[in-house]
């Protein structure tokens, strides 16, 4: 015996395809109630009617796909079709709203915004410094770099910017509209820096909460990048460390498929001081080691393991040192 069911009806059917018993959804059919039902069915639960039947007939096997191919299954009438259509639209909208509860998506927005802001801040800041430096020939473009945008943004003329930076007035003055543009550009750089700081701070906070162990090991921003590149924490946790190691090195990976040597590390891992400050010949070894540790760390975070403490992280960093100490010299060329 089998139980066939959909959202409005459940039937017990014997081996001769005869209907032994049936229960229909009899209470008031509202949009919200149907949306709830559809949600339950989609998550693999039985309808209340099917559950009642399976208590009545414990030997009957419930078949979620049964109603689909049952030739005697009653068709939906026009009202039912309309109700189904509206309820599924409502459920879809509910699902769209629920997407914001997904930390993977939140971290994606934050981490991507950080990357984009960092890129545009770098470009704009460099332009601003060069632009102001063109007029203010005496400004130390390296030593005073950090204060130039703020000084130009806060000044009302090129002369007052020069005073603020403690240098003599420029030989050539910008035109009136030119100054307005330069001043606005500098204000933009200052504002962009603010935005970058707050976005990074928010990213760090979410990463520390969502992937605490990985954040401790790789830094919260790097951890966030890895999660985003993998397409979610779950996917990162299920990834072998060899894949994790080259996450983000997509260009090098594509070249590898065409015969180039495999990438040793990704931009994410490479930006870690343990890798980037090591001599060239041990970077691959350290990247492999760290990738292995990182893949364990993210599994701790995802599968509710106990987060590692500072002590454990210090041990791992010590191990990086040991690897470096074991290979003090570059390998001999053959």
């Amino acid at each position: 015996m089998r139980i066939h069911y959909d959202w409005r009806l459940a039937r017990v059917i014997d081996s001769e395809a005869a209907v032994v018993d049936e229960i229909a959804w009899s209470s008031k059919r509202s949009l919200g109630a149907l949306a709830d039902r559809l949600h339950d069915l989609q998550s693999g639960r039985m309808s209340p009617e099917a559950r009642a039947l399976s208590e009545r007939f414990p030997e009957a096997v419930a078949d979620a796909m049964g109603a689909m191919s049952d030739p005697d299954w009653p068709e939906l009438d026009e009202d039912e079709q309309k109700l189904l259509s509206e309820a599924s639209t409502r459920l879809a909208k509910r699902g769209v709203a629920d997407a914001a509860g997904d930390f993977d998506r939140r971290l994606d927005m934050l981490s991507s915004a950080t990357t984009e802001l960092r890129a545009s801040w770098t470009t704009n800041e460099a332009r601003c410094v060069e632009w102001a430096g063109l007029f203010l020939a005496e400004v130390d473009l390296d030593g005073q770099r950090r204060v130039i945008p703020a000084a130009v943004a806060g000044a009302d003329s090129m002369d007052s910017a020069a005073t603020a930076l403690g240098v003599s007035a420029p030989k050539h003055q910008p035109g009136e509209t030119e100054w307005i543009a330069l001043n606005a550009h500098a204000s933009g750089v200052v504002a962009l820096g603010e935005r970058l700081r707050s976005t990074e701070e928010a990213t760090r906070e979410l990463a520390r909460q969502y992937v605490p162990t990985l954040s401790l090991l790789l830094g919260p921003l790097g951890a966030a990048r890895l999660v985003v590149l993998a397409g979610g924490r779950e996917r990162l946790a299920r990834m072998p460390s060899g894949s994790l190691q080259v996450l983000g090195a997509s260009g090098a990976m594509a070249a590898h498929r065409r015969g180039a040597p495999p990438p040793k590390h990704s931009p994410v891992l490479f930006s870690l001081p343990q890798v980037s400050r090591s001599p060239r010949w041990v970077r691959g070894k350290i990247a492999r080691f760290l990738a292995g540790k990182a893949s364990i760390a993210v599994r701790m975070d995802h599968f509710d393991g106990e987060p590692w403490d500072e002590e454990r992280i210090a041990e791992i960093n010590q191990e990086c040192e040991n690897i470096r100490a074991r290979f003090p010299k570059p390998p001999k060329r053959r």
Partner: protein
Amino acid sequence: MPRKPLKLAWGVRREGRSLWTRNAVRGVSVRGERRKTDSRIEWRAWDPTRSKVAAALLRTTGDPSKLLPQTGATVLYLGASYGSTCSHIHDQTCGAQNHHGGQVVAVEISPRAVRDLSELASLRPGLVPVLGDARQASQVAPYIRSQADWLHQDLSIADQAETFVRMAGEFLRPGGAGLLSLKAASERSSDGDDASRFAKAERILQDSDLELLERIEISQLEEQHVVFHVRKTDHSAQFTQTNAE
């Protein structure tokens, strides 16, 4: 001189190299496509470079009307994305205010795409948006009213052909038509180059219960894609056999 339009189905016609569907929502374009009115009927341009179904209609060597669902049909669309192709299929199967009584179940996993899809559905009765995994039959089954007359799968995942065969086995009615838009770039790189990935998918379809009618090359309209046109044989499903007895 204007070309004489060729009628492919109730709501689809071809004029030279362009395709048009009978707009179910007058005055509204889904993705800014062209509209035109011809003797009080509004037609909406169906861009073959953006829709693999439209590309297949232009490139098939057989009868293009065989690739389309009938009016009033039950349609399952796996991987509906933002719903532009879906809207044209809806034009044909449901018509304005669903006066044909069709059902187009559009399954999509991305909430961002489903957001647009449910906007579309609120204007187009008969279109059922589903936020779910198109590879899992149990996630689709609650929404579809009966077995589908027409099935289209357009997913960017590995094992597209296996998924298609499995889903067609569950949902396509005997005699129903199916289109598989196969994206080579989504298959595993260990399967070799594009040509061998297409060949592998073709083999999987040939070995299945489905009858492979045509492999439609749509290069130039959509790169790295091939559309397979299949039919489910009348006797391949179990219950029709028991019915006949």
